[in-house]
């Protein structure tokens, strides 16, 4: 049934509701004044100039980027590993492993945050890129796990048998036959993991120190002190990077020639 005009009108209103915040933040980031204005009275790039020349912001930007990349890498390695066990392992029931692999995205982040905080503070970890990356990789693992498990399910097991028959050991089969086939899905999962680290506040907030902050933590701090156009500018940059990640994912999926597999 073709949607009615009324439904279309409703959809467009809802779409405007959905994008309004993004547009407002983006527009106000170009404000020339000290306070948030919408619509804009006068446009300028002064806030971008401010953040792009500020050492603190640049450092936070670097921290976020490093944490995100490192977390995505860890999530890729371990997420795929768990997917192997879920797909082909025989020792543990598949259901249990799937629950473990998906668990971190269904559990409230604050619980993960205080749990890791409790462990890390005992071990004297925190306040640097590696410890936050390790913490964030937990949140990223499900994205890699879900995507690679789905890719795994679509593989033909005969192909691996063929590799073994060709004289390849299990390990060679894994690296030369299995991984290349699921690589696009692992990449998509890793990008999603990067995205989840990139704008993560809660865990980062628990593990930050005055000398080590990520962009979201700085924004969150600013927000609680009062809204400034510079916050909007940083937020816009944050979103811009997320969009780039999304576009790369879309391109990978397009290239894969398959229908997109869940974004969650």
């Amino acid at each position: 049934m073709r949607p009615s005009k009324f439904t279309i009108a409703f959809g467009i209103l809802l779409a405007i509701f959905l994008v309004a915040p993004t547009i407002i933040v983006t527009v106000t980031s170009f404000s020339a004044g000290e306070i948030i204005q919408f619509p804009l009275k006068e446009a300028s790039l002064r806030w971008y100039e401010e953040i792009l020349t500020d050492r603190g912001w640049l450092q936070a930007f670097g921290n976020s980027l490093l944490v995100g990349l490192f977390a995505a890498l860890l999530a890729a390695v371990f997420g795929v590993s768990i997917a192997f066990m879920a797909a082909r392992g025989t020792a543990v029931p598949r259901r249990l492993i799937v629950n473990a692999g998906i668990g971190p995205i269904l559990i409230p982040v604050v619980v993960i945050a205080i749990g890791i905080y409790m462990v890390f503070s005992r071990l004297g970890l925190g306040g640097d890129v590696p410890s936050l990356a390790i913490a964030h990789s937990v949140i990223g693992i499900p994205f890699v796990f879900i995507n690679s498990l789905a890719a795994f399910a679509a593989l033909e097991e005969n192909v691996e048998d063929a590799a073994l028959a060709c004289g390849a050991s299990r390990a060679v089969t894994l690296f030369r036959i299995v991984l290349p086939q699921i690589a696009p899905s692992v990449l998509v999962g890793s990008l999603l993991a990067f995205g989840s680290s990139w704008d993560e506040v809660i865990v980062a907030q628990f593990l930050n120190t005055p000398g080590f902050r990520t962009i979201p933590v700085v924004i969150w701090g600013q927000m609680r002190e009062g809204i400034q156009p510079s916050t909007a500018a940083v937020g816009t940059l944050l979103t811009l990077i997320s969009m780039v990640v999304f576009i790369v994912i879309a391109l990978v999926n397009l290239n894969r020639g398959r229908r997109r597999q869940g974004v969650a």
Partner: protein
Amino acid sequence: MSHNGSTAPGTQVDLQGISKRYGSFLALDDVSITIEPGEFVTLLGASGSGKTTLLRILAGFLQPTSGLITLDATDVTRVPVYKRNIGMVFQNYALFPHMNVEKNISFPLEMRKVPRARRDELITGALRAVHMEDFRRRLPRELSGGQQQRVALARAIVTKPSILLMDEPLGALDRRLRESMQIEILKLSRELGLTVVNVTHDQEEAFTMSDRIALLSHGRLVQYSTPAEMYEKPNSSLVAEFVGESNVFRSDELVTDRSRVEIKGDTWHVAAEDGLERLSPGDRPVVIVRPWSISLTDAADKTTVLAEGGRSHLEGTVSAVIYAGESRKIIVHGGGDDRRELIVRQPIETELNVAVGERVLAHWPSVKNLLTKEHAA
């Protein structure tokens, strides 16, 4: 079709007392098969017969619960698949989807540490053998099913393996392609002198290709012999029924003496002499006749036809005439309490001398009867 250095002699394969148990389920029950070098053997059976399990055990994907596998008198029972020098072809081609044709074929060479300098020559030879020289750079998904299976075959033979294993290699192809591939595979394996073990449920394929056939049923080896022997001297009713369309006669009313078996029903009477030696005391005899051996005449001619003696017969009504390609299938319904039916086949070129509903006498020389025993389940 030439393949350099194609004189690699095949390997002798010996499977001794192979059993495979999954919990309480016995997938293979004490199967022993010896395959001579260069022989083409087919494991034939319905699904669930254990044929694929046996092949996977021979390949090394599975470990037998008990039994011994030797290749050229070397025990390989505990050798993992990738250390057995085998080539294998799968039903769904199982080409590496992310590698082009050339890389697919190069893969086993790399794994077996063939020097880079020699690979290209071997790849070219294998591609030529399967007539796929022009497809080197194609990805598997850019090839048709038949072409993919050719590449898979090239990949399986490029290392000159000691045995070639094929798991329903033609199952996914259409009939015409299947028939031409059968001949090609056979020619190729003969040229290379490969020992081949093929798995299929298609008895026509088994008969076309094999030197010997191992018929499996419910995990047991029922008969292991040449196709001709299997057809002409089935060692049980199960074999006879599996390897061709059959009319099977069983009856409580039977006469046995040292020279012949005679059994009869309400409307029929069959006798058999050949094959008596294959029966042991206590076996239930079964008489089988192939539909091609049977002639039909007007029921009125019964006395004339049977006068000369030595003929088996059934009297009944033609209940259907079915045209099936190059032959015609005629069903004769004997009536009587045993509701006996008989399948008769005639070449399509012969004139049809009966009509549906007509009373006929189906008769054939008793020497055409195959005598065998009831298969013990």
